[in-house]
């Protein structure tokens, strides 16, 4: 067992992780930061309910980058959902594989981070926000840099396919940088495929800059194996009149932690965050979202829903900041949870911090179970109990799935949710 948290043998842990010679400045800064703070321990407010460091200490014996696995064209093909047309970007244990990817659509370019040397790297996802950003900064091998062309719409979605498999739970650290140029539009879909049932730890950082008048959509599916441990820091800078929409669907893993940060940097920007977690077994999912309104007239909408059974645990923390200059802000946040079993736990903390007076902000949060009367209503009309339950649960989930604008992916997610609700709930 390697100790990774603060006040313990941090230095020893840091000596045992992989180092690469590029991006020296970023890595040095992150090393200094990590030496000082370590990874978060359970007493820290942000990680109070998700003892991810303990989980990692117990399950991960080596922090070296995971060895590459063999991925065939057939494997990729078998993991595309029905009706998908578009470019596929393939990652082998977090590392981009050009030969297996198909990048042909007009309207954008893709390069390796080591080639692009973008100054933007590390400026959107800040190390102060989460020590796992520093860990990724310190030891990611390489990543990708996507740039859209000004005024162009990338017609077909871009699919990120992550194939993960690690021995002794090695570390997988994908790194993605996306620049959505002025007046352009693009849709991304992300799916992670666990290649076996063994433990791995993936620590992802995605940075997105959405320039003026641009629109970006990011759909993410996390349906990994039951031993997968994953931390994602997803940070977005949104500029004037730009919109960014995220839809996240979480179905399975051992422990998932997602930090989604939306920085609304200018007037009239819109940030949307939707999430659905449908958990069974011992899956632990933690969604921390953070919206920062800094300038007037921007909007944010957030809807996260959860259905939990068995010994699953859901954690939700939604922060909304409205700065002094951000007058006329509209910020809405909603978190609804349904607990179906005795051992399921939900910890939720919807948090508002407001320094401007001319704003409309609200949050709502509910935890409960299915409405007995609604069940009875359906049963009285000849619908069996199981079916009625499924119907009602699906109605809960549907509201989030509706937000996916790309039809084939929506259909795929609906199928996954239906299967899940039909089987184990």
């Amino acid at each position, binding site marked *: 067992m390697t100790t990774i948290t603060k006040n313990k043998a941090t230095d020893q842990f840091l000596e045992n992780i992989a180092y690469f010679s590029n991006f020296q400045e970023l890595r040095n800064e992150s090393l200094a930061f990590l030496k000082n703070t370590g990874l978060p321990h359970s007493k820290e407010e942000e990680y109070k309910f998700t003892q991810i460091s303990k989980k990692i200490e117990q399950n991960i014996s080596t922090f070296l980058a995971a060895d590459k696995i063999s991925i065939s064209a057939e494997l990729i093909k078998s993991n595309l959902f029905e009706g998908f047309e578009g470019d596929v970007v393939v990652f082998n244990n977090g590392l981009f594989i050009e030969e297996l990817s198909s990048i042909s659509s007009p309207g954008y370019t893709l390069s390796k981070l080591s080639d692009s040397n973008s100054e933007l790297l590390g400026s959107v996802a800040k190390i102060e926000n989460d020590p796992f950003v520093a860990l990724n900064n310190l030891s990611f091998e390489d990543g990708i840099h996507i740039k859209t062309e000004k005024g162009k719409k990338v017609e077909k979605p871009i699919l990120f396919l992550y194939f993960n498999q690690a021995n002794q739970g090695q570390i997988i650290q994908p790194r993605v940088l996306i620049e959505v140029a002025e007046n352009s539009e693009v849709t991304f879909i992300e799916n992670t495929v666990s290649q076996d049932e063994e433990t791995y730890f993936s620590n992802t950082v995605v940075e997105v800059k959405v320039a003026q008048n641009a629109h970006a959509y990011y759909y993410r599916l996390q349906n990994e194996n039951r031993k997968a441990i994953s931390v994602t820091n997803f940070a977005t800078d949104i500029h004037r009149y730009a919109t960014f929409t995220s839809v996240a669907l979480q179905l399975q893993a051992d422990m998932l932690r997602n930090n989604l940060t939306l920085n609304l940097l200018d007037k009239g920007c819109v940030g949307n965050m939707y999430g659905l977690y449908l958990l069974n077994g011992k899956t632990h999912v933690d969604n921390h979202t953070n919206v920062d309104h800094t300038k007037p007239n921007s909007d944010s909408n957030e809807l996260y829903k959860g259905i939990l059974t068995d010994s699953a645990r859901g954690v939700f923390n939604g922060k909304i900041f409205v700065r002094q200059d951000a007058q006329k802000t509209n910020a809405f946040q909603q978190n609804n949870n349904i607990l179906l079993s005795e051992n399921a736990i*939900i910890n939720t903390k919807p948090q508002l911090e407001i320094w401007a007076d001319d*704003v409309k902000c609200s949050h709502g949060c509910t935890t409960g179970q299915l409405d007995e009367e609604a069940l009875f209503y359906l049963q009285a009309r000849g619908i069996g109990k199981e079916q009625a339950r499924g119907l009602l649960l699906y109605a809960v989930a549907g509201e989030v799935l509706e937000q996916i604008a790309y039809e084939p992916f929506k259909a795929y997610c609906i199928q996954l949710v239906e299967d899940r609700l039909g089987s184990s709930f």
Partner: protein
Amino acid sequence: MSKDNQILEELTSKDYEHGWSVDMEVDEAATGLNEDIIKWISAKKEEPQWLLEWRLKAFKTWQEMKEPDWANVTYPKIDLQALKYYSAPKKSNKPKSLDEIDPELLQIYERLGISLNEQKKLQGIAVDAVLDSVSVGTTFKHTLSKLGIVFCSFSEAVKEHPELVKKYLGSVVPITDNYYAALNSAVFSDGSFCYIPAGVRCPMELSTYFRINAANTGQFERTLIVAEESSYVSYLEGCTAPQRDENQLHAAVVEIYAAKHAEVKYSTVQNWFPGDKNGKGGIYNFVTKRGICAGDYSKISWTQVETGSAVTWKYPSCILKGDHSIGEFYSVAVTNNYQQADTGTKMIHIGKNTKSRIVSKGISAGKSQNSYRGQVQVMKRATNARNFSQCDSLLMGDRCGAHTFPYIDIQNPTAKVEHEATTSKIGEDQLFYCNQRGIATEDAVALIVNGYAKEVLNQLPMEFAVEAQKLLALTLEGSVG
């Protein structure tokens, strides 16, 4: 500058009405905090050995604790060694009737509108007035004692009902609870003790007024309320304090124990000196208040109107242990100028079919910061727990802040928990509507704020509701810019 801003200016520059202090001879402890001081306080109060040991144990615990830093407030570090931990008006003999009380003292109460005489009697309030640390007068004692109700100062209770104090002291707020509770346990000077025997419905509102007077004296009150089976009591606590330049610390502990079918209603109007309009001075109010619904069908209800203090850090909580027990929290917190308030509640559902309700209304004006921090926890065996929380914030002016930190932790699938929060300012259309009908802006604001806070003010006993409404109007009239 608009007219509204002028009104705001006038109001906020108004001096604190209750700000004055009366020179009196006081009996004080030496400055600083150590075991000897605690022994000195204990000896001074002629306390039994077990209580001294309890204090010393609390002191040891406290020494190992760190000052909490999680609250959303900032203030200069308090030098606890620079404080005096005991201050009492010098009196050789204990007063037996009001005549014996220092006329200067009585004058203070008169200026505050509190009288310990016939007037109060007519209003049906028994007042246990606390000036600095020692209880100086208790009325209605006889009426209450006929019913078996004990309502006296804490030190008196220690002497006369040691078995009750020993049984319940620290049972709801243990000495290990938090930094300030531990400190209070070690050095508490006095406070109120209230015991309602089984089956008794207390015929009047019990009330105690706290005042801080001597400079450089931390105020460490300890209140203990025990309601036996099927009893009922409504307890009122109100605060005003004279103007001071230095920050003063107030770290009180309130414990409530409710047995089967018992009901306790605890209402507070807090108006400690908030500091002047530049944020200078003011009271630090770090209070631990907690009640336990120990028996089935018991009920504890907290109502608070918080308008004072430079920094407030206060979370009246309910532990709903008995089945079918009910916890309630109603709060209006107003901050102005440079005030900071981090307040809220904890509802811990342990028993079956427990219910809780939280209504919190925050109003921030000037450059103040107002935070709601609350927790609703449903334990695993708390089947059919029900909670409804509502926390609204009203912002007046663009330099203030309103923050909400609700924690909702559910471990039982039958729980139904709802939480709602909104933040907004007074609607211009609402003001316009009132103006149109001939209501001046200033009156309209008072009207709207009153309506906004009504849900909470309605929970206050009559006498308090009037006082609270006045306070609200005084603090906020015309502060919409």
